[in-house]
């Protein structure tokens, strides 16, 4: 077993939104960004990214345009829509609440009960 963790179901969307919120990115760039911001601790199978991207586009959270990558390849770039930015905020808050609750639950000592 290595140190990387499998992504929890449903969390990929949040990661994508977060990655894109820092600036427009193409698919591969999003992967790199997720690796970067998670300290390479989260593992996403590369192809698995795309269904998530397409779903977010369909939900109107992301918009796309074709552009050129740093090394001159044609690539499709994703960026947040207004709705996407709003959703990211909501999801982040709800995630933090969950983490806090989980952490406190797991840290609870018998005498605190």
């Amino acid at each position: 077993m290595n140190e990387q963790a499998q992504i929890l179901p449903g969390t990929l969307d949040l990661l994508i939104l977060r990655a894109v919120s820092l600036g427009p990115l193409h698919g591969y760039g999003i992967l790199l960004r997720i690796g970067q911001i998670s300290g390479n601790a989260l593992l996403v199978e590369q192809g698995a990214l795309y269904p998530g991207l397409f779903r977010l586009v369909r939900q109107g959270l992301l918009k796309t345009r074709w552009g050129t990558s740093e090394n001159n390849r044609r690539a499709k770039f994703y960026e947040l829509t207004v709705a996407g930015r709003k959703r990211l905020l909501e999801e982040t808050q709800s995630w933090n609440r969950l983490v806090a609750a989980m952490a406190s639950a797991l840290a609870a000592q018998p005498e605190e009960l």
Partner: protein
Amino acid sequence: MRLLASIRSILLSRMHRTEFRDEMDEELRAHMNLRADDLVLAGKTRDEAERQARVEFGGYERWKEASHEAAGGTVGENLLRDLRFGLRILRRSPMIASVAIVTLALGIGANTAIFSLVDGVWLRPLPIADPAHLVALESVKSRAAAQSDQETGSSYAEFADLRQRVPAFADVAAADRRGVALETPNGLQMLLCEVVSDNYFTFMGAQPELGRLPSESEIERADSPILVLSHKTWKRVFGGDPAIVGKNVNVKGGLATVMAVMPAGFRGTERLIDPQVYVPQSSWTMWSPDELNAPRTIREFEIYARLRQGATLDQAKAQLQELSADLSNSYPQANAGRSFIAEWQAKTSNDGMKVISILVLAIAGAVLLIACTNIANLLLALNDSRRREFAMRVALGATRGRLLRQLVTECAVLATLGVAGALVLAEWLITLVPKLMPDVGFPLGFDFRIDHRVLLFTAVAGVVSVLLCGLLPARSSTRISPLEAMRAKAWPGGRAKMPARKVFVVAQLAVSTALLIATGLLVRTLLNLEAMKMGFNNRQNAVLLSIGVNYQGPQLQAEFNALTDRMRALPGAKDASIARVVPFADSGGGATKVVLAPGETPSETAGMPVWFNSVDNAYFRVMDVPLMRGRSFDGRDAAAGAPVAIVNQTLAKRLFGSDDVVGRSLRIGRQNPLNAEIVGVAYDGKYGDVTETQQPYLYLPLAQDDQREVTLIVTTSESATALLPAARKAVQQASPDAIVLNSQTLTDHMQLATYTNRMAAWLTASLGALALFLTAIGLYGVIAHGVSRRTHEIGVRMALGARRATVFASILKDGLVLALTGIVLGTGLAFMLGRGIGDMLYGVNPSDPVTFFGVGTVVLVTSVLAAMGPARRALSIEPLNALREE
């Protein structure tokens, strides 16, 4: 805004589907190129980098499909994609897919073929106007002791009464099957003729294909006999002559004018035969005027009626009761104790056939059930190995409904292929049917075909199969907690999920066992019947020719002698004889003579009807009928000699209480009996039906009892089949006027006697074998799957020192437990089934221990063989490898 984006995305994916796909391709490829670029920077060669990029990306097609799905296609598009995806999955497991398709094709194919048979003999509405409201009439005699009293037809005089005196009936029609000899350029040809009441065509509401169907009054007033051809006869005998209507044809007995040709498929009320010509009664009596006043006791016509507007069947039944009472007062000799019963024709048609049809259809249904459970098990195994894929898709947001739809689509793909295979199989089976039919000497009219009704049945069977074999595994396979499944291996270890599969296999084993037991019982019945003493030598090589001869008195006897002499001179022929009938004639026991008991006073109602035969002097020798006492007929018993008779043991005992009756006198006839001296007592035999109780039987000398339709029996020491054409030709040469009505070997004739039993045994045997075969596959699959799931466990056990024999035994034991449970349940099922088919059994108890035990052994051995393969595979597991796989 979001809604708009969503709609745009969907529209985009839909309207520009190919562009959308191309764009997606471009995007995904760009991703891999970008990754490769990075890897090159990290020091790999371009080739290596590209390969690794592809590997890291994962299943390209799969992610493309998933992306497309996420982008939101339409229902139709999703379906198409599911189909493609399903086909790909099936292609990836060709073994499982082909086993499933073949299993389904066998199961549905057998059902389709059998349904088309049942449809042909029973279900399909008759091709006449308003078949649902056709009423069938029967005349039944209360307390009918002798089988000869059990005929249910009516005489033509009774038909006239029924037509005039039952107000509830709008109209009544009558039909009877006869033979008519037609002169064709190729010589005389016997045609199966439906002699019908003059109103028959109007009654049936039939439209001709050619010509015009004459009205009733027209037929009555016609100067010459009228003939209506069936479509097949028109094509076959008259070469489809378009100008046939109005032409005169020569019929034995006179001329007839062809009035019309019926359309293909028309056969009146007949289901099992296909009449070749139709002749109205008025025309028929022009050829045979003596039938104009046929006695009321000759009940040859089948009667059908239609209710008057507003009348009910109950009213008709009440009026029939009145009429029956009237008739038995007016004609006590003919009608005493008889009454007419009426029922919707659709309900009464051929009860025996109906029972067999339901039985066979039920058995075929059981086989289909086995096929479905097999496929369900296969799919469970297939889906188990795809849990990781499902888990991934759930993790990526696919709903359970989406997965279910995917699985059902896969099943539908399987079912479509299976149904296609089934139709091909059924079509082939149906073409086999005519070859399995007995040679009865006239065109059997079983109309078996794959029409829209059969197609509908097949489609329903297919859909039900999909639901049965697809939904069940799909339900359990999609109940996935994504997290759990993602973490787990391809399938969870241990024995989870097995119960459903085991239940399926046990059910299969139970049904197969029950089916095979039923088969065993029917086969034993058949063996009993074939081993039964028939009272004559039914195993010798002989040919039977039924012939019609148009002479009388001494001329007729001379003709008979000439014929037998000619036959004996045939190369290979041993001996020859002529008799009115041979046992198991088409008409069963056939005609009767009334015999008076000693001391009984002759009267209109006296005596008992007894089946009889008129035989020449060689009959007892040729047919090998043992004479218990007295002598055979011989030269003394000529037309001018003293009347004599031979009785069988049962008749002797019935009349005199003993079979020591040679020399006693027998009275034949009701009111003016003829005294005949009993010269011999013949061994009891079977006469009308193999399963009949012992019937009284009377033999008269052919010389003293003129018969113009007789059967010529020629025995041979060589092949009877080879003798057949020579014998037929010899009859034509010896007596150009004689018509060969029918010719067959004794072996074929006897096959006919046990035909229903043979068919029942054959059908259940083939279905039973199919069931056992499918069950063995099922059992193999379940055990094999169990072994592969337990590879790790077995490896551990072996590593801990378990002996291979112990492992082998434990796998076999799994199989044996399933098999024994199934067999025990199947035995219980067979007890119930046995009661259901009790009527079809002969000389064997429905719970016959030999059959039960034998079948149990067969199923057990088959099960052990099926479990053996996987058990041996378990033996070859290398503990180290098995552990490393973890």
